[in-house]
């Protein structure tokens, strides 16, 4: 069994879609049944490969949205002129088969053993790997305090809202809505900047582990700002998504 699991990780294997759940009007979570899944770590991703009838293939990477031990789930945002995401968010349904490769990644992972505070900064769909980390934290009852700073365009663009609003003590979720806020909104507005990070982030003296995920321009701005605020670059882990959606 171990041999099969290793082979599955290295090469493409066929997964069956178990269920699909719409998170927002443009974001969908897909649960996959993967026969030779070797388990994963919070923060890892998998690659998806689609094949058209004429043999044309397209591959994309998606962060795993579920915790280690839960069924494999990915959350996909539909990009306006995307090639793969419109198919995954609109066409794909339970029972369909797709090829996947993974889990992948040993850098952008959080296993929960380290009690140091954790800062998670998400831009749009960059929140997906953090949901895996938060679920993992709860499942293993980890002690590390976590702050998630989540930038989204509007209330309707916040993914996993209900779940994020019910986090246990030790996890704080801070939102900033950049384009549209609901009436009476007292939370942050506008893009993440040095002032907001300075207010939300753990003090540098507490040596937080920082993770930043989202579109490339978002990640670069936030990471550069954290460095300028005194957080060591080695303590900041980044994962960039292509496309500019969601922030």
């Amino acid at each position, binding site marked *: 069994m171990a041999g099969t699991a290793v082979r599955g990780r290295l090469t493409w294997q066929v997964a069956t879609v178990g269920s699909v759940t719409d998170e927002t009007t443009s974001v969908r979570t897909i649960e996959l049944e993967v026969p030779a899944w070797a388990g994963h770590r919070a923060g890892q991703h998998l690659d998806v490969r689609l094949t058209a*009838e004429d043999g044309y293939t397209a591959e994309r990477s998606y962060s795993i949205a579920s915790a280690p031990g839960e069924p494999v789930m990915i959350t996909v945002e539909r990009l306006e002129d995307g090639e793969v995401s419109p198919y995954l968010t609109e066409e*794909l349904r339970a029972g369909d088969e797709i090829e996947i490769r993974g889990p992948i990644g040993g850098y952008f992972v959080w296993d929960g053993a380290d009690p140091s505070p954790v800062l998670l900064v998400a831009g749009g769909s960059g929140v997906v790997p953090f949901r895996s980390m938060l679920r993992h934290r709860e499942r293993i009852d980890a002690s590390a305090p976590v702050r998630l700073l989540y930038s989204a365009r509007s209330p309707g663009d916040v993914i996993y809202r209900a779940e994020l609003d019910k986090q246990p003590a030790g996890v704080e979720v801070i939102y900033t809505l950049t384009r549209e806020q609901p009436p009476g909104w007292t939370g942050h507005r506008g893009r993440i900047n040095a002032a907001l990070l300075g207010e939300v982030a753990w003090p540098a003296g507490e040596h937080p582990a920082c993770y930043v995920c989202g579109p490339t321009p978002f990640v670069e701005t936030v990471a550069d700002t954290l460095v300028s605020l005194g957080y060591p670059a080695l303590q900041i882990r980044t994962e960039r998504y292509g496309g500019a959606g969601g922030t």
Partner: protein
Amino acid sequence: MSPVSRGFHGRRREPEAEASRVPPGQYATTDFPVLSAGPTPHTALEKWSFSLRRAGDTLKTWTWEEIQDQPAEDVTADIHCVTRWSKLDTRWKAVSIDTLLAQVDHQARFVLAFCDGGYTTNLPLADVTGGQAWLAYGYDGSPLPPEHGGPARLLVPHLYFWKSAKWVRGLDLLATDEPGFWERYGYNNYGDPWREQRYAGD
């Protein structure tokens, strides 16, 4: 064998494309995908120039204004990317490479296009002359955007589109052939889409 993904088509297909205009292994799209091996250069027009060089010497250089003063053509062409998409009836505003080469003396048999960002691609002289190649600075009625190679790119539609070098700054005129960027990494030295010459050895 990979299972076919039910209902997956890839990019938005051009439904009206005549099969005879789509080379083997290609499909026609209405998109204009942006492909790049590095960051998009942004060269200011005041600093931009196009040069013809030979053995390290610059034979002639044109500034942006001087290129604008060259006789330009409206070119309509089908383009074919080695990553399998084709786009029919693309419209460009461009200066023929013949026009520029006519202004220098040379006995080159090959050219190596060089570009901002370091990209290069090689072509036989015979494929950039005779009305087959242009320096294009307008696309679809507007200035060529940086993501598609602006201020100007090479346009050589009869070959795979990696030969239509983006952000081109000149041509090295060579006596012997010298592989460019993708040619060195495994792509075909010539790149005829009608003979499906994608990779080295095809």
